């Protein structure tokens, strides 16, 4: 049995600088971005007054995300819905890329930490914008000033926990699927060793993949954008 579980492979170096590696994750992320771009262009070509077919689908998706933003963040937050939609789509397709023989973009802490840092910046920006700089700093002294270090920690924990959650779910699924493939190979060699192919590897990993890839991908994309909305909405109403 040879099971290999590696991080994303380094494909090359930017400008030949060993400090700027181009990894598999980055290549896949660009493929996913180009795919989403072409999907958007395809869905919105030749728009008509009365939507039908692909245009109706696109409009339905936009309305759904708008409604989600409205119901979670309260009215007057429509400006966030493009960002939420971007997060949702890049997370969903980035994770589902694993169905197309690519390493999932989100099974790399760099990707999810990047997104979580954008969200963290949004949260802090909105807290300062709506509560004022004084209110933001005063929030660290709640309920008593002794709690300040803990409050700073809990503030830092937000992006860490968001990124680790997404990364851990996807990477965990990847590891379990890989281990399962190895185990099934051993099992089919032991039980059905007279066959030339590892028969048990057919079909069974698909069932696992349905949960670890499809379900988790949809779930984590939804949760990541949902948490972003909840945190930013909370920051806006804190002032």
């Amino acid at each position, binding site marked *: 049995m040879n099971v290999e579980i590696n991080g994303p492979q380094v494909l090359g170096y930017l400008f030949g600088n060993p400090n700027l590696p181009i990894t598999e994750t980055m290549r896949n992320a660009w493929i996913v971005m180009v795919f989403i771009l072409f999907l958007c262009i395809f869905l919105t070509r030749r728009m008509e007054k009365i939507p039908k077919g692909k245009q109706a689908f696109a409009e339905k998706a936009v309305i759904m995300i708008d409604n989600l933003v409205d119901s979670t963040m309260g009215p007057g937050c429509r400006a966030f819905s493009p960002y939420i939609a971007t997060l949702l789509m890049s997370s969903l397709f980035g994770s589902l890329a694993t169905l197309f023989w690519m390493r999932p973009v989100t099974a790399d802490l760099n990707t999810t930490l990047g997104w979580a840092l954008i969200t963290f910046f949004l949260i802090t920006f909105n807290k300062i914008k709506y509560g004022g700089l004084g209110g933001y700093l005063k929030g660290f002294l709640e309920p008593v000033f002794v709690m300040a270090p803990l409050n700073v920690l809990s503030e830092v924990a937000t992006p860490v926990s968001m990124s680790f959650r997404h990364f*851990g779910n996807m990477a965990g699924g990847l590891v379990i699927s890989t281990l399962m493939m190895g185990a099934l190979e051993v099992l089919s060699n032991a039980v059905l060793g007279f066959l030339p192919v590892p028969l048990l590897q057919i079909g069974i990993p698909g069932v696992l993949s349905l949960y670890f890839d499809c379900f988790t991908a949809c*779930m984590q994309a939804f949760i990541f954008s949902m948490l972003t909305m909840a945190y930013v909405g909370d920051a806006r109403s804190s002032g």
Partner: protein
Amino acid sequence: MDPKAFVAGMSALGAGMAMIAGLGPGIGEGYTAGQACAAIGRQPEAQGDITRTMILGIAMAESTGIYALVVALILLFANPFVGQF
């Protein structure tokens, strides 16, 4: 004893023990789902809201388990201690 083998073995043991943390989220999420079922039974018309809140809560409760998983993965695949010997 070869210190490298000792550290590697102990790391594998530690990774396994880290995953005991999976108990907590399992219990918590099961309880949450049960409570959500009870709530939907009382108020079927609020199913959408209840489900959404439940999923969010489950995701939050799951993070402790995910931390354990990340620690286990680090111990197994990116062990910081092996290189010291």
